């Protein structure tokens, strides 16, 4: 998804690190990675370690890190939009207008990354970066531990017990789509985008599924 951007900017001291939050492991992610024909890093995160370290709640989210290893933009939606919520579920298509808007938003986000790499634009000063960090609560911390245990139990043939831990993780951290969708996918491939998913999306009401990056 980021290859065009990377190819254009790789000579400017720039790197893309794409991390697959994929508890089913590398082989499950491989077809998408092969298709991306990328030469940046494609990493596999079976335990969602990145979600734990950076307090992430969905995919795709991105963090911008400068040459000194400092966060200059905290986690935010990486160019995706909520247009999919209006799609026709029977035909799985969006209106031409929504498709255009969706592409334009993605393009605007890519342009922001370009501008950052070439001019430094959009990098936030420390106080603003700090103010935009989502806070880790004790409930979130517990949900991470339960998810980790759940993935281990699942991977070791203890699905029922694992699912119980994952359900509790999701209850403790209801804002995390990654926890819920990964658990659904482990139960059955495809379930993460099934009827239960759409019910959860509908229940958001006016709240965004992908809060737009404030660029």
């Amino acid at each position, binding site marked *: 998804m980021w290859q065009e951007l990377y190819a254009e900017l790789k000579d400017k001291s720039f790197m893309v690190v794409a991390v697959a939050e994929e508890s089913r492991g590398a082989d*499950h992610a491989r077809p998408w990675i092969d298709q991306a024909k990328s030469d940046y890093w494609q990493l596999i995160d079976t335990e969602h370690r990145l979600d734990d370290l950076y*307090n992430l709640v969905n995919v795709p989210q991105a963090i911008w890190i400068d040459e000194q290893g400092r966060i200059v933009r905290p986690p935010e939606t990486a160019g995706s939009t909520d247009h999919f919520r209006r799609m026709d579920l029977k035909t799985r298509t969006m209106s031409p207008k929504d498709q255009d808007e969706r592409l334009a938003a993605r393009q605007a986000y890519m342009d922001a990354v370009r501008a950052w790499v070439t001019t430094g634009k959009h990098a936030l000063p420390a106080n603003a970066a700090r103010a935009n960090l989502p806070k880790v609560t004790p409930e979130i911390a517990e949900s991470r531990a339960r998810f980790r245990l759940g993935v281990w139990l699942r991977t070791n043939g203890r699905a029922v017990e694992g699912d119980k831990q994952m359900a509790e993780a999701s209850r403790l951290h209801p804002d995390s789509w990654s926890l819920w969708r990964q658990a659904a996918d482990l139960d059955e491939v495809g379930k993460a985008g099934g009827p239960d998913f759409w019910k959860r999306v509908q229940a958001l009401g006016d709240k965004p599924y992908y809060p737009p990056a404030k660029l």
Partner: protein
Amino acid sequence: MTKILTPTAEHDVAVRDGLWMSPVDAERVTGWTLKPEGMCRADLCVPLPESAVGTNEVDVAAFWTKLGGPVIASDQRDVWALGAPADERNAALEGLEAPDFTLPDVNGVPRSLSQLRGKKVFLATWASW
């Protein structure tokens, strides 16, 4: 042997009554060392109640709870997860130094964020689901 999962590792440890274990194992699992002052890492010591220390053993569940980290056990209490304390995660992020991690690439080669120092890094997640 009991399996203990920490945010970055897996350990097989001999324990009794929950997570009572030898100080050597406690250090291996938590990175904290048992001293007369409590459990210590670098200059920092967390005092432990007498009830959490025995003869050549320490109650890691009690220590971890004191630290503010979640301690979760499987139904059979044969697999445990020690989670990072919320305060520790918040402090790390508020420092704005991007937390380092090592993850395998699709062919199993380990890669660390810190290898990319000197470059701007666009770190992005995705998933098949």
